[in-house]
């Protein structure tokens, strides 16, 4: 097995072009499990941890551009204020040891339907920046996933970063696991409110072949939330929102839960996270620009 260790982004792209069969490794929290258990024996590993550019984040115009190699720990510590939904999700990933190494880039790279970074990225209209020696393209995150553990990444492409607007309203994330810590999601849900534009973003995890948005549920809330008064949420609206979220999912029965349970749980998560986010928005009334 070869071990490729580029120290610059251009070298990394050149290496991936020359060895499309090389498996990128960032935090290693998915890749090493496969190697340790002999599930994978790639001809080459492409270590991305020496590429400094991947661990940087900053503003690109109005958007935040966060390098693929920024760890969950840094998302929580450094970006919690501007990306609260993603930071909440990051805090549920594995353990401190896993969060010290694991990255959003690796989560996208694995493209697991259960990846915890995915619902908040979906809810906030994030873009995935992918690059190769042929050039750079940005893919809306809801077009990034093509199936369980499959994405639009070409064999010579690497994920450079994700781009997302800093929160302009409340964001929430909730996850059901078989216990409190160190679990892969049975299902998960993220919601983001954009009060200035009266839009709502959603993201569903672990309840379909890919992470996905609940478009009808988003449209319902955009049209019917009491945006102006920010008064209490009408119960029928909340219930209908839960139903539409559950309806958008396409869950399966597996060892972690049945499809029926997942649908039921998603409706509950959707109602709860909406309630929390709306309470935040109501509480922020009077502050200039709301809680932005």
């Amino acid at each position, binding site marked *: 097995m070869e071990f490729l260790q580029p120290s610059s982004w251009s070298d990394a792209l050149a290496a991936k072009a020359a060895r499309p069969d090389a498996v990128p490794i960032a935090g290693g929290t998915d890749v*090493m499990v496969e*190697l340790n*258990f002999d599930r994978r024996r790639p001809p080459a590993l492409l270590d991305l941890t020496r590429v400094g550019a991947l661990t940087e984040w900053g503003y690109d115009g109005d958007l935040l551009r966060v390098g693929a190699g920024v760890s969950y720990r840094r998302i929580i510590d450094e970006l919690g204020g501007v990306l609260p939904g993603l930071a909440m999700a990051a805090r549920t990933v594995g353990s401190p040891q896993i969060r010290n190494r694991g990255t959003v880039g690796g989560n996208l790279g694995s493209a697991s339907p259960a990846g915890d970074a995915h619902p908040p990225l979906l809810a906030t209209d994030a873009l995935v920046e992918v690059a190769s020696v042929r050039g750079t393209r940005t893919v809306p995150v809801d077009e990034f996933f093509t199936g369980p553990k499959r994405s639009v990444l070409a064999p010579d492409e690497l994920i450079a970063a994700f781009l997302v607007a800093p929160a302009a309203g409340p964001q929430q994330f909730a996850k059901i696991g078989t216990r409190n810590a160190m679990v892969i999601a049975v299902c998960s849900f993220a919601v983001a409110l954009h009060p200035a534009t009266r839009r709502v973003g959603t993201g569903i995890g672990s309840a379909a072949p890919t992470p996905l948005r609940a478009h009808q549920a988003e449209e319902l809330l955009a049209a019917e939330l009491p945006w102006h008064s920010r008064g209490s949420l009408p119960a029928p609206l909340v219930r209908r929102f839960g139903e539409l979220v559950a309806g958008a999912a396409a869950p399966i029965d597996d060892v972690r839960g049945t499809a029926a349970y997942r649908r039921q749980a998603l409706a509950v998560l959707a109602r709860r996270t909406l309630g929390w986010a709306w309470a935040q928005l109501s509480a922020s009334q009077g502050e200039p620009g709301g809680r932005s």
Partner: protein
Amino acid sequence: MRITCTVNGERHEADDVWPGESLLHVLRERLALPGAKNACEQGECGSCTVYLDGLPVCACLVAAGQAQGRTVITVEGLPAEVHPGLPAGTGEGLFADAGALDPVQRAFIEAGAVQCGFCTPGLVVAVHDLLARNPRPADPDIREALAGNLCRCTGYEKILEAVRLATGSARVAPAEGAQAGGLPAQRTPPQGPPAGGAE
């Protein structure tokens, strides 16, 4: 490939390392540092926890080549570390050889938080890090910080007691019927007998 890194303050070299090999394997099998334990090799048990460039990580999930040129501290190297989080003299005078132990290690022994001891090295590193970041953690902080470390023996109450002891905030006696509900007591244990074995 050849791996050179600083482990516990000393430069170490290992030759003929297979690139897909884990840092844990390099430490245990090539550098004769068996403190970090191998129980699951999938990041679930935390018994292989070491500091890598100052952050606790599962050594089983770091590819050997990723540690090239980096700084590793294992449980064997902790007593030499200056500990910012602990009050001076914690646990001193308990044992004749106490000088060779980190205060966290001493607290584990004093609290009876060591039974078979297999999880202890990983827990000690995780607690060491917790106290460096937060010298006075509340119980929920302790539970969150230790969520990645499995113990099959203690039921976790003694481990919580050890952390409280290390911070100087131990209760005289643990509360009657105290629960360790937030820690992974119910988790499926690591498969089979621990590979490599405790020495």
